[in-house]
């Protein structure tokens, strides 16, 4: 069954690229949308019916796939964000050829992400991280705009450093453990606990993943890449791609594959706290909508890293929950940014202010998105931050918990200034070039509804989905 998540998109790419002109129009977009919906609904249904039993590890070609609750949550998230990204692309990309290319690349990235989530082998993991990354390089530069190419180039350079780290780490593991499957790697930690090569290998792999997740001080590429990418691409990139290739893989490896010593865990927490504070501070004075969102993204990923370093079951459940909420909220905000970019051809907040009143759906959903990201009850983001802070307190990490709490003030500061600058301004008579963007409005409403529903139905969500994760992750 899990292999379907890889095979179906692959098959779709092949079919869409058959030499038939008719397939390249709205049919391509439509089938891709359906695929994303089916993927999220399917994983959701599996999540809801706990009694459905699946074979944990399924051989597929030469690599083995495994599926569990965590995987299902991520597959669901991938489906939702890709869906939103496709809707945005439908509204914002005018050129049909470019749109078709976008769909293809998105499907490739989708395959990559699905496989990253499912594989149980370090080398295959690396390969699919690279596949996803390459697809996203091209996606960022899809406009062939100079600015975007610069952003892509920085991402590429930093990613290549990460590649070097990950490949050398795999080489070490082949030497030490004799294989790259997760179980082999895990055994190499328990068997020869004093072997320095195991530890160096783990450290190297983690460095690669830290670059991919864009945590401070590995974050240099991220603001440029996010803000330079065209609207739908920044939704995909910020919403899910860097999260899956970076922080999710970090979570998976550091909890169930590698055995991290205490100083590594402290280091993760430190990096998390540093990212939270520095990125939030940097976001305060940004004048570009998307750049501010990019820094906010770093700051929010910092929370996940902080919870990862804490590594108690509650903290890990909180990390996964925050991962989901953050993916939803940040995609929503980037969809809003894309909507404004399409209408007013700028993302500079001071210029946006001069355009006066913004469409109602965009401003309301943006309010929901930023309140959820800042952690305002009863929206989704509040609960996940609360769980993380509680986990930190109960683990005795009082200082980190206080940092996590206080940084919320900074988060609110920059989000409030964003909201007041961009949305809460007097109505003016300047008419936007594009009057209505129904596809984007649909994406905004769906994502905002998810953020509100998850928050309001939190007890249900917590006990059905997220708290059982504690068993999987430990």
């Amino acid at each position, binding site marked *: 069954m899990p292999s379907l998540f890889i095979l179906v998109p692959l098959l779709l790419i092949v079919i869409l690229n058959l030499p038939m002109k008719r397939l390249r129009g709205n049919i391509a977009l439509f089938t891709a949308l359906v695929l994303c919906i089916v993927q999220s609904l399917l994983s959701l249904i599996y999540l809801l019916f706990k009694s459905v039993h699946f074979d944990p590890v399924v051989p597929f070609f030469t690599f083995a796939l495994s599926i569990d609750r965590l995987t299902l949550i991520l597959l669901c998230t991938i489906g939702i964000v890709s869906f939103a990204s496709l809707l945005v692309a439908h509204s914002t990309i005018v050129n049909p050829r470019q749109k078709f290319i976008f769909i293809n690349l998105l499907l490739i990235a989708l395959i990559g992400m699905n496989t990253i989530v499912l594989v149980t082998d370090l080398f295959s993991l690396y390969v699919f991280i690279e596949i996803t990354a390459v697809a996203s390089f091209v996606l960022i530069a899809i406009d062939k705009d100079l600015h975007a190419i610069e952003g892509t180039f920085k991402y590429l350079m*930093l990613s290549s*450093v990460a590649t070097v780290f990950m490949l050398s780490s795999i080489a070490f593991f082949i030497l030490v453990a004799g294989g790259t499957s997760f179980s082999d790697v895990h055994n190499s930690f328990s068997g020869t606990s004093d072997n320095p090569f195991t530890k160096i290998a783990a450290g190297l792999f983690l460095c690669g993943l830290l670059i991919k997740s864009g945590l401070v001080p590995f974050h240099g590429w991220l603001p440029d890449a996010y803000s330079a990418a065209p609207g739908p691409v920044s939704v995909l990139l910020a919403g899910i791609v860097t999260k899956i290739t970076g922080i999710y893989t970090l979570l998976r490896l550091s909890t169930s594959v590698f055995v991290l010593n205490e100083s590594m865990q402290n*280091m993760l927490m430190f990096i998390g706290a540093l990212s939270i504070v520095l990125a939030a501070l940097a976001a305060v004075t940004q004048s570009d909508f998307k750049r501010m969102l990019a820094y906010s993204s770093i700051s929010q990923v910092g929370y996940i890293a902080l919870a990862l370093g804490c590594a108690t079951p509650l903290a890990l459940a909180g990390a996964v929950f925050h991962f989901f909420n953050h993916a939803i909220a940040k995609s929503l905000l980037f969809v809003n940014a894309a909507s404004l970019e399409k209408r007013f051809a700028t993302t500079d907040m001071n210029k946006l202010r001069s355009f006066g009143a913004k469409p109602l759906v965009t401003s309301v959903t943006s309010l929901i998105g930023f309140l959820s990201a800042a952690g305002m009850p009863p929206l989704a983001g509040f609960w996940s931050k609360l769980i993380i802070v509680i986990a930190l307190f109960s683990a005795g990490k009082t200082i980190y918990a206080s940092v996590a709490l206080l940084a919320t003030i900074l988060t609110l500061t920059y989000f409030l200034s964003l909201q007041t600058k961009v949305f809460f301004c007097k109505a003016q008579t300047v008419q936007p070039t594009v009057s209505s963007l129904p596809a984007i409005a649909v994406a905004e409403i769906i994502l905002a509804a998810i953020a509100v529903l998850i928050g309001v139905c939190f007890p249900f969500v917590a006990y059905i989905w997220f708290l059982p994760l504690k068993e999987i992750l430990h």
Partner: protein
Amino acid sequence: MIQNILILSILLPLVAGIAVLVSPRKLYRSILLVVTLLNLGLAVFLFRKDAVLILPWAPAGIDFSLRLYHFSSFIILAAAVFSFLIALYSISYLQNNAIAKQFYAYLLISVSFVNGAVLADNLVLLLFFWEGLLGTLFGSIAIGGKQSFKTATKAFIIVGVCDLCMMAGIALAGHISGTLAISKIHLPLDFLGGIAFILLVIGAVSKGGSMPFHTWIPDAAIDAPLPFMALFPAAIEKLLGIYFLARITLDMFKLNPESAMSIVLMTLGALTIVFAVMMALVQKNYKKMLSYHAISQVGYMLLGIGTCLPAGIIGGIFHMINHAIYKSCLFLTCGAVEKQTNSTDLEKLGGLARIMPVTFMCFFVCAASISGVPPFNGFFSKELIYDAAMSRGAIFYLAAILGSFLTAASFLKLGHAVFLGKPGQSQPKVREVPIPMLFPMISLAAICILFGVFKSWPLNNLIHPVLAGASVEHPVGDSHISLTLILVTVFVLLAALIHHIVAARIMGGAVKAADHIRYAPVLSHLYRWAEKRYFDPYEVCRRIMKGIALLLWSVDKKIDWVYNVLMVELTIISSKGIRHLQAGYYVIYIVWALLGSFIVIILSLR
């Protein structure tokens, strides 16, 4: 059956009060009359019956427990009579007045809370209803007019602070005795018990309106609707406050004449009598003068109960009911005068006795009662109190008899100025008030006479049973009063009359009859300070608080500066610094990443 009626007597007025708020214009007057009449019927039915109702309500001994016995049934009956008569009066008085609806609702809700507070046999339940009355008190004053919100706030704060003391007292008493049931609490007056006693007494006497918790009453007299004055400070609050004071001193603490608390209570009573009546004497406004008398008369009740002698306690409780009757009636006559002439200023009124003879007769009876003229009811309760005060110390007796002299003098001045003499300026076509306003006045004045002439009925049926369960033995008979004291009283009253005639002749007018006291050498300073409100704890606290508030404000500005300026500047500076680090050169980014990786790998080896 009786238990259900107990619950009904609390719920019925409450529901009716809420119904009044939402009912249409035509309906709410009938609701008010019917429900107060029903409440009176219930109170008559419950009179002299015994019942106990205990429902579990909250943990820690807080039960919804009601206890009906002779004392509480007596207070409920009295409150029901007053609320019915004043409801009848206010329907005519507040006709075509926009505040009528709200006032009726507050009146009904207050009746419910009074019934609850009197019946409650649990201190926390008592406090619940007691505080509920604070809400209706605030509302009733606040609807009065433009200025009345300030006065309502003043009343709310003063009574609220005293209720807070009472709350602390309840907590302490409950803690010491281990139970919150009033009928089970019997505490000694040791150190903690003494503190609890004082706190509870503060709650009780502030409800009664004794000094120094009285200062909102004269202000409310001007600002609040008049039926409120006749019902709350004149009647219901005195009933409740003195009822609770009697419960504290008789049941809960068993105050005896030897204890210091007895002296404290008597001193408080004596001071209240003298100072409040001194203020009353120089007032030139009908309502204000009555309100100071309402304070002064509480002093007699405190003095009587504080003596801890049977005669004093009986006198105090008898005085409570007498005072409620005549003071309520006096406020109603004041309302009648105000309704017809649109004025309560003594200098503008005069000669109303010929135009409003019934009102004048009621005023005359009640004024004689309050001054202690035999054979009206006030005379007998005051004589009992004099007797007890005399046996505790001549100084208390002297204070009481001085109060009596000044009361008589001030009512002579009032009656002379309003009803006798030349007609005032602003009364072109004045007539007698309508029957619904006359009926309550006549009824109350009639009770004044009846309770005076047939004093053994109220004493034997209302007052003596109160002491039956308490520690006080030998209930006194009505023949107890000594002849000497009666002669002294009569002499003092005659002196007051002569003083008034002479003073009015010399000073030139009834209104100025007390001016020689107002401008006496030492007293003039005291009066001036009192008029500047130097003796008003609320105003004094307000002035002190203003200074503290200014100080805190300046401190707060500094704290605000830290948050509004310093933190913001720091955030912006550090944010800009971080932005400069993000220079856009990918080489620098790679260097950061490599440095970070170096540290991570070093750490991984540890």
